[in-house]
């Protein structure tokens, strides 16, 4: 497949961002390839009620 991109005039006055977080990108420019991966895990067993114990000790 052939794909043509025409970039015209781009002029931004003000840009306010609260947060760029967990493998995300804020780019002012050109890029060929972006890969963004984020893994997040909070299973039911992540809530432990009882006496404190070390988690995953080394």
């Amino acid at each position: 497949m052939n794909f043509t991109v025409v970039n015209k005039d781009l002029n931004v006055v003000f840009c306010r961002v609260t947060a760029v977080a967990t493998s995300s990108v804020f780019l002012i420019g050109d890029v060929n390839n972006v890969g963004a991966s984020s893994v997040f895990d909070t299973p039911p067993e992540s809530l432990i009620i009882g006496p404190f114990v070390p988690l995953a000790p080394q």
Partner: protein
Amino acid sequence: MYNRNSIVDAAYVNILGFSSIFNIGDSREILPKANVFAVQREAEVFYDNEGDFSKYDLFRLPIPRPIKSENVVTSYIHEKPFIRTKFVKILAVSTSAVFHIGSTDLIDMEARVKHNRQLFRPKGVLDPEEQSGED
């Protein structure tokens, strides 16, 4: 590939943290990676031997990548060779995130976060809700 020039008059970033990047200028490859083991406890207890990443599959297993099924041939026409921005204000950039002014070839980010919560009940003491007999 011929890239455009980025012109930013002023940029303000309040916080940069946890393997995040703020780059001014062109770059070739950006590959930030962050492993986070977040523990929230009812009391301020800290064990210094905690958090062995290798014990969780979340931190060990490879992340699946999308498969390219079609070859795309891209051509670019830059009618204006500039990207202009007067002012950028960002509160925070965190956990393998990227704020980049300029052009780059590859950005590959990875963040793995595991959350844990521990609420304190001494041995033999039931939860107050359980004791009341209500569901």
